[in-house]
């Protein structure tokens, strides 16, 4: 299971989700992506993205305006 970190800080909607999608395409099911984003709308957006794609949001935390989300890609 690969693990990667995507830094999407300094990007506004919809680019963090666009970058996350591109990162996910190059990875396999079960892999985890840790995303850093400071777009204020990132939390509801990443939740919607995960739900639409059937992935799993392991955790999301916020500190000083920076969100850290851990996404596990669905298998198969």
């Amino acid at each position: 299971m690969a693990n990667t970190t995507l830094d999407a800080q300094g990007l506004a909607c919809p680019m963090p989700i666009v970058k996350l999608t591109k990162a996910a395409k190059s990875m396999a099911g079960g892999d985890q992506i840790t995303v850093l984003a400071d777009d204020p709308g990132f939390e509801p957006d990443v939740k919607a993205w995960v739900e639409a794609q059937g992935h799993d949001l392991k955790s999301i935390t916020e500190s000083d305006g920076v969100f850290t989300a851990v996404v596990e890609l669905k298998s198969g």
Partner: protein
Amino acid sequence: MEQDAKKATIVVFSGAMDKVMAAFIIATTAAAMGMQTTMFFTFWGLSALKREDPASGTSTRNWMQKMLAMMLPKGPANLPLSQMNMAGMGAGMMKKIMQQKNVASLPELIESAQDLDVKLIACQMSMDAMGISREELIDEIEVAGAASYVGEAQNAELNLFIS
């Protein structure tokens, strides 16, 4: 993309920067959410597909089409705002503000849409009527008619018309 992917279609009728940006933001997001996304550019919307360095091949325009070509924006980086454009000053200020707020520019959004396999279709009839040749538009598009759009839209869950 999977056969059972949900579909989204957007008709881009407007050639205003703000409206075309809204269309591309929704299109890239729809594609990012796993939807098979098609954008159909017609009338003023065609300006968003113009290339920065148009090749020649426009000699068949009549005088009215030549005037139209002179007045139409030259590509996505030069579109006016739908409101408060103030002869381009408003558009320039809006671009500056959006840059400060880390918002992707229209050319960047178009690139992202292409990266995510959003299908871009230029309306053949509008091109013909307005005297816009294939060479004036970017390479990565298809040219087709309304039936192609309706064919995509009739089994899509999300269909938008940006006027």
